């Protein structure tokens, strides 16, 4: 066995390396570095249909991620989906007539909330509700409509 001093140094290096690897996995590989759970402000939006939107899906405007979907609830009175969005604090100039859509990344990709800016000079504040929303495109509905229109064409 190596002399005691050397083995101590090597064990120290080994353990340090192990923790560096864990730290690397935590910060670089997992989402811990962006787990800004308590930071930012929240907005809500009601959608008729959110498709397969999931909690933690990105919220983006012009393709830039501004925040995440924090919670998805169901409104028993209007039978709509109530989506809570958490937006990072530095993006505090989103107009209050902004339009919220649910888009799909790629043909089969995951769904995310896309914001289209309005023209109002007043920004949205913490807890505000986005009034203008558009539902997710559901593939089955689109195919259904397509078939319907085809059938009508054929009937003429």
């Amino acid at each position, binding site marked *: 066995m190596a002399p005691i001093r050397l*083995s101590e140094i090597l064990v120290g290096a080994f353990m340090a390396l192990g923790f560096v*690897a864990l730290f690397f*996995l935590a910060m670089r590989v997992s989402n811990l570095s962006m787990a800004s759970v308590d930071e930012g402000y929240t907005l809500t939006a009601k959608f008729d249909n959110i498709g397969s939107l999931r909690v933690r899906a990105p919220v983006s405007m012009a393709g830039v991620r501004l925040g995440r979907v924090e919670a998805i609830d169901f409104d028993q009175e209007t039978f709509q989906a109530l989506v809570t969005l958490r937006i990072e604090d530095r993006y505090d100039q989103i107009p209050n007539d902004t339009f919220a859509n649910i888009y799909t990344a790629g043909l089969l990709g995951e769904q995310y909330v896309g914001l289209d800016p309005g023209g109002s000079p007043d920004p949205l504040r913490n807890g505000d509700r986005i009034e203008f929303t558009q539902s997710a495109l559901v593939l089955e509905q689109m195919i259904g409509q397509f078939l319907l229109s085809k059938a009508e064409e054929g009937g003429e």
Partner: protein
Amino acid sequence: MLLDSLANLGRLGLAILASLGRAHLLLLGILSGLPAMLARPRLLLAQIYNLGVLSLLIILVSGLFVGMVLSLQGHYVLSQFGAAESLGVMVAASLVRELGPVVTALLFAGRAGSALTAEIGLMKATEQLSGLEMMAVDPVKRVLTPRFFAGLISMPLLAAMFSAVGVIGGWFVGVGLLGVDDGAFWGQMQNKIDFNEDLVNGVIKSLVFGLVVTWIALYEGYDATPTSAGVSRATTRTVVQSALAILGLDFILTALMFGA
């Protein structure tokens, strides 16, 4: 004739039960040596050197190559669906959740577990353990406890290094050689790999595997027939039983953590 075979079956069952009982009593004895070991941390240190530091090379090199192969094969399948950007997620998820803990534990059983069994078995065969007892030193507390905790500490660290090096290997092949976009590789990975869901569960897995592998190795060594053939058989049993235990437990842990 029938009674004989029935008796054989019964003897086998009783032997397995007795062996399990001895293993658990040994574990109890090992754990009760914890306070004594904390008083002499140098014993633990020397064993972490034996089990952890000396396993580094095989773990790091294997991790690198496993990550690189994952990246190559993953790219082949994913690019057919136009989803090569998800390569990072695939590599990282398979490493952190499964391959990191499992492959590290298998290598650890082969590299460190077999060495432990052979060492303890030889100590028994050459009557060093009895010698310790003659000097009123409990061989379980003095010899086995530091080895057990060294294995328990080394395994998660080795598994973390395996995964980290594997991700870097996967990045090297995916981004460096196959031309996947660097930002997409890391970005999608960070989006999809959850700290609690994936990383913490992976660490828990490697802790469990570390416990089981070290326990089996120490028990087999301590329980070995004190002859050359006995030590050789015990070493073989350690590797075989560790591998089976790791793979079986991995299924159960995966079902508990990620299933349902």
